[in-house]
């Protein structure tokens, strides 16, 4: 029995919550009340068909990205395919790796074109699309372990900088990971691009063949997983500090190359309390130091 899409304003009276099947969006827009209203209406109107659009070509979207193959039909599906295209030659990846970011981007786009907003975000389970009018900024808090949310750092994003997408990936998250990173957070120009890159980097944080890492074929857990019978991480046991460093090094190497290719702007990699930062953070002040008090992930 199909449940209808749910749309509601959260109890704080400010944020919009859109939910349909596995898609769960938290949205907030800033600006004149009438503009915010118009943006929320546009978001809801766009949202109602999103899941059906994606499911209509779900089979295709679960196939590995390859150049010269069939093209996606829907606008969101095309964005997913575009986001993973740079990785198809060297990695296993399917357009599904970018689905959360691509949906967030699409909804944000519908809002920004329907209303004049100073700022807005669409948070799709941690994959976030941002809108910043000139002179505006966002302060974004980051969690190290999604299952134990406590803030370890925050990111300040200004309108003058190109970052409009944030995504986090890790084996403890909702999606399966081939790697052992607790979380990899990526800043990129678009949410779909950030989503795909976070997946690639999180997969790369790894210690292949390590006996303390429990890996299970994805299809034994989810029979229709796009990862097929590839081994996905289910448990990470004891690791020495040397092993932690080795695992992070592998991820940093990939992140560095993505940075050099202009695919990402910055990345923060977390494993067992150790953090490595790649990218423009030092110069711009992104990924500032941890603070003690707990703050919003997306803080107005």
């Amino acid at each position: 029995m199909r449940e209808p899409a749910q749309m509601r304003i959260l109890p704080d009276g400010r944020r919009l919550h859109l939910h349909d099947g596995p898609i769960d969006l938290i949205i907030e827009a800033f600006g004149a009340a009438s503009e915010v209203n118009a943006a929320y209406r546009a978001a809801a109107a766009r949202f109602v068909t999103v899941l059906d659009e994606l499911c209509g070509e779900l089979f295709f979207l679960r196939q590995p990205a390859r150049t010269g193959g069939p093209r996606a039909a829907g606008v969101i599906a095309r964005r997913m395919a575009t986001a993973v295209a740079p990785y198809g030659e060297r990695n296993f990846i399917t357009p599904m790796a970018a689905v959360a970011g691509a949906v967030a981007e699409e909804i944000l786009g519908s809002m920004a074109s329907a209303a004049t907003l100073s700022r807005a975000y669409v948070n799709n389970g941690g994959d976030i699309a941002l809108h910043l009018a000139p002179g505006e900024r966002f302060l974004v808090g980051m969690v190290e372990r999604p299952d134990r949310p406590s803030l370890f750092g925050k990111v300040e994003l200004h309108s003058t900088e190109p970052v409009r997408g944030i995504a986090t990936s890790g084996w403890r998250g909702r999606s399966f990971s081939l790697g052992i990173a607790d979380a990899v957070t990526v800043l990129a120009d678009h949410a779909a691009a950030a989503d795909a890159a976070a997946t690639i980097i999180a997969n790369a944080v790894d210690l292949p063949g390590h006996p303390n890492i429990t890996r299970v074929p994805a299809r034994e857990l989810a029979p229709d997983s796009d990862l097929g019978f590839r081994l996905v991480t289910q448990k990470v046991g004891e690791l020495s500090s040397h092993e932690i460093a080795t695992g992070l090094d592998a991820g940093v190497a990939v992140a560095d190359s993505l940075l050099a290719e202009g695919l990402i702007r910055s990345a923060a990699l977390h494993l067992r309390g150790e953090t490595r930062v790649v990218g423009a953070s030092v110069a711009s002040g992104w990924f500032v130091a941890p603070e003690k008090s707990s703050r919003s992930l997306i803080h107005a």
Partner: protein
Amino acid sequence: MVDDDAIRCDACPVLCYIKPGRTGACDRYANDNGQLIRIDPHVVLDRALSRGDSVVPFLDRNREWDGNIVSGSDTFVTAIGAGTTYPDYKPAPFIISSEVQGVDMVTVVTEGIFSYCGVKLKIDTDRYLGPETNLVRAQGESVGHVTTSEYGSQMLSLGGVRHLTGGSRREGTVTCETLLNLCDRKPVELTIDEGATVVVEAGKAPIVDGVREERMRVGCGSATIGMFAKQWQGKVDEVVVFDDHITGVLSEHQAGKLLGIPETGIEMKGRRSTPGRYFRVAEPGTAWGGTNIDDPLSILREFDPEIAWPKLRLLMVSTTGEHHAYFELDEALRPVEKELPASLTESVARIKENCEPALSTVLFMAGAGGSLRAGVTENPVRLTHSVRDALTRVTCGGAPVYVWPGGGITFMVDVSRMPERAFGYVPTPALVAPIEFTLKLKDYAALGGYMDHVRPLNSILHGEGRRHISANPENPWPLSGTKPPKSDPRSDQ
């Protein structure tokens, strides 16, 4: 894709295959030993969001399958989202002890999967909805039937095990969806064979064939004559109150006679019951007074020329005051419609005023089967006896229930007294509803309760996934059966 133990979830178009013990892509539906169940992380989300301090970037994969509602300063744990151990005959998911006025109480909290369940719908309307016993359909599927007419209302009985599991797959699915929507206080469109299409929503006015029902009639046509005869005396010579059941005529009615209102020579169609009271002046319908009449004069024969007189003043009004017309007889004793005189507008308005708002009301009715009762005690029949003996109080999402006399635990509950989103379903199809049994701890021990599973209230209050809501002040407090506690500052954040 061949996978023997995976089940396919049809809750959304992703159509995940889900292995036992796993959730689908949404983390909301799970395979519990071959049963697709809903685990609703919304409750968890609500908590994080309502706290206002953090949004968690991922939903927790390892979340336990619970998510209780806890309410009030004297906290009561409802079964909403508690999950169920069915069909494993294990102790209920939560067996919670608390102290109430010095007495140790225990509340056994579970969600029941009810195949034997349905709703009783009371639709306040004088309009004709359809013949008794005819099928009621939703989306073309039969989901119930028309049962008795009650005073100012029509009763429908929807659901039940035959529609849920006895018919086609689609009939069961549509029935389940219809029941769930009605219990969730959502609007549902129902079509009655050879009858009306009605949109019902718990606590809201019914919409019959596109017309919103505003008011219940104050009484039948005859009763209305009795109530208002005195107000009409001297202002009008004759009044006909339209009703699909008993239409009243002032001059012939006992009330008119007592006031000395003279005969008018009016001749009614239909079958006269007693003086001034007529059955079946017209067929039932959705026009005047719940009849099929659009032209009120069509229920009259010609006036008796021996008695009637020119300029005779005639008011025709429906039992709800929604329809009315005023006539005066011409020289040929034919009624000619005129504007309603100011002296009569008040009485028409008063009829309308005396009609209460028309509502659709939904009672959920279900029977707690042996396996559900086995989650409470090792000896299920003792629970039945304990409920019978009023030692055990049954509540449904914290709302009071009426337990039907006789065997078993068959209960009814007004869904509007329950918290929001209290119901769920499994694809069997069957409804999932919360049910709580509250009794003294010593009585629980005596009836063979799972004493080693009793946990103190505090132990479950602070885990993940608790949704705190305030108690409905109209409900008796489940733990004491008296008044609800003062409102909780945590409520409704």
